[in-house]
């Protein structure tokens, strides 16, 4: 198990190098730092001096890959690639355009993101699985049909609609929750409640339908018939046998997103004014702060790969037949 884990982490390195090279190519080769400077300073009437100054402030005034003027190790280290891209491997993300340390921002903004994303994820999972189990229980009846129809309808509605509609009804008409904002500590509940409810509601359609398909696939198998033949009630069959055996496909889709919960949700956080990583990213996109976007891309893939490894581990927990070696 430990050997397997070490090997998996070892495998992740080339993928992270690939991500790093890709972002490097995207941000520094496709468009040179000169282009970015010109874009940020305004296209017209931009002087070469202003561009130089912009680049110098951000440390972009170095050669891309090889610094022939520097001596010794500086040939490699005193370059944009080394200082801006390779440094991300030790989680050194540098500074954003307003001069703040990105790593620090990530640390402080992780908690608000998590305060929304984690409850949404947990409550959502319970709600979706129960709804799917209910539909499975009433399969081939009109109730199941109605449930599926409802799911298709819900998943055809834009995610933006849930947020805008929810804000309008709950906050503006009923005055149950503040429209947006965030506070730490005990006050945070009234701010995070609405985003969580909306986040859960928005996923019902597609997720419940997906779980229903998984359960229906399981319910045709032999062990289910055996369980029924033993005289177990349908509920016991569903919860004790079908749910357990459906764990593997469920975990495949679920565990991988757990580390990504840190990143928060772009939409929810920006609509509700939550100072998390999602709104940080969206602000960076709107302000065209390239270094923040670059850091987020790298962090995102790092967490995704962590999620994949977690998924493998979770298999061994629910299915004793799975041995990692």
């Amino acid at each position, binding site marked *: 198990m430990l050997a397997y884990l070490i090997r998996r982490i070892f495998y992740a390195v080339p993928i992270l190098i690939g991500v790093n090279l890709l972002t490097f190519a995207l941000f520094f080769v496709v468009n040179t730092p000169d282009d*970015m400077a*010109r874009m940020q300073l305004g296209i017209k009437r931009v002087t070469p001096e202003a561009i130089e100054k912009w680049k110098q402030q951000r440390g972009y005034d170095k050669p891309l890959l090889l610094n022939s003027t520097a001596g010794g190790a500086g040939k490699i280290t005193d370059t944009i690639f080394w200082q801006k891209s390779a440094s991300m491997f030790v989680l050194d993300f540098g500074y954003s355009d307003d001069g703040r340390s990105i790593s620090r921002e990530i640390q402080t903004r992780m908690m608000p993101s998590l305060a929304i994303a984690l409850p949404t994820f947990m409550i959502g999972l319970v709600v979706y699985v129960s709804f799917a189990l209910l539909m499975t229980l009433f399969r081939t009846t009109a109730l199941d049909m109605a449930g599926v129809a409802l799911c298709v309808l819900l998943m055809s509605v*834009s995610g*933006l609609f849930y947020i805008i509609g929810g804000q309008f009804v709950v906050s503006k008409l009923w005055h149950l929750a503040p429209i947006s904002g965030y506070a730490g500590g005990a006050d945070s509940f009234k701010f995070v409640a609405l985003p969580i409810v909306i986040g859960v509601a928005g996923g019902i359609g597609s997720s419940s339908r997906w779980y229903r398909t998984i359960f229906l696939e399981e319910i045709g198998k032999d062990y289910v018939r055996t369980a029924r033949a033993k005289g177990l009630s349908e509920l016991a069959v569903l919860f004790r046998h079908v749910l357990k055996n459906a764990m593997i496909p469920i975990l495949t889709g679920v565990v991988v997103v757990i580390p990504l919960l840190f990143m928060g949700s772009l939409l929810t956080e920006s609509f509700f004014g939550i100072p998390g990583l999602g709104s940080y*990213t969206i602000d960076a996109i709107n302000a065209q702060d390239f270094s923040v976007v670059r850091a987020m891309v790298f962090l995102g893939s790092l967490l995704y790969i962590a999620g994949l490894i977690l998924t493998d581990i979770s298999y061994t927990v629910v299915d004793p037949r799975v041995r990692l070696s």
Partner: protein
Amino acid sequence: MPVILWSDALVFLLLAAGGIGAWYVRRHEHLLLPWRRVARSATALVSLLVLSLFLAVGLLDTLHYRAALPGQQSGEAVYSPEVLSVFDKLIEPLRTHTEKTYSAPLAVALYAKESVADTRGNVLREYPRLRYGGAHLADVSQRDGDVAKRALFGALAGLMAGLLIALASVWRLLPSPASGRGAGGEGSQSKYLSPESSLRSTSLSPTLSRLRERGLPLFSMLVATLVIAALIGAVANLATVYHVLGTDKVGQDVLYLSLKSIRTGLIIGTVTTLVTLPLALLLGIAAGYFRGWIDDVIQYIYTVLSSIPSVLLIAAAVLMMQVAIETHPHWFDTAASRADLRLVFLCLVLGMTSWTGLCRLLRGETLKLREMEYIQAAQSFGVSSLRILVRHIVPNVMHIILIALVMDFSALVLAEAVLSYVGVGVDPSMISFGTMINAARLEMGREPMVWWALAAAFGFMLVLVLAANLFADAVRDAFDPRLNRTEGAA
């Protein structure tokens, strides 16, 4: 002067490919079989009808031209810098009837009070009448009656047209009742028409009963056609003198904006998959068939791409594209071509993130297929790898591609709105559901609320995506070999 934008060219390419595909499928009964299964589902056919209406609007909106400016004596014609489409011309009143600012659906007055000087010079605060909406009414109080009358007449006219269409499709079926050809989707809404067409009912009823035998949901199709036709008739009749869905901040008709958004949504939904399909197909089956280092390299590429959360990858790529567009203004001759190129780029970027899933599926399926006896037989006969791939592998993974294509469509339409909100979507000057929602969202705080632009964008999107989802489900059910239990015989 006709203008072919990049996205137009891609749409025409897609149409040609679709046409060739349809022609090929029609000539091969075994390929036609799953489609017959699709045609038996009422929801699939009705949603196909809705989708083809959207498609018609989108296609008309794709035929672009630049109008010649009048008043040029010399031989050289001067063209307006504004790129219009045939659809713009068709619904010209909607495009040109712009008011000053917001007005509610079917309103005759603006939504905000303004200072108006009356004939004696007194300044009053009141809701000024609209320039176009209900301008033919002498008195505001006549509006309700007028709206009801126009809607009714329009609906009746639409109903008649719908009946005619249904009748015409029955007529088209009649000459060759035996062959059963030409009895596709739209040619089948005729079951309950027999009273109207009693003249030819003797020859009609055998056709109908044959259609019914094949399980075509004739009644649902008829009802759907009539309802849609009546709706279109009513809206069209109202739209000439009212703003059916109100106007937005700068006074543009919301119905016009919604209809124009359809093309953007369709292009995002279809072109995205089209541009990346060759890549996914090529790499997917190559990785699955050749295995070894080719497989390793291809797997590495798509693992790297798919390990980046898609929104972030899209954001990064679109940001870079913005830089490229901003710093090279000389690439574009009109604003439309600039917005259009950005749309095509967006499709490419979206495709870049979505091809990996399809590639993985194709690789897995090819891995399975290459162990089949017929592939091994071909190999032992010395058939070249390329030939095996083209003759044996590709036709057998086609159903995966088709299912992925229809399933991705609705997700992409929804993604466009979100991306435009995030700021990495289509060009702000391009009309799309995302830009509509984005603009209307800012009016949430107004008291009383301006709701119609949001409602229109969400409503149109819901209808489009719902139809696409229902159709996609039917296609998947018909093509998924795991679900095909009833008709293995043919």
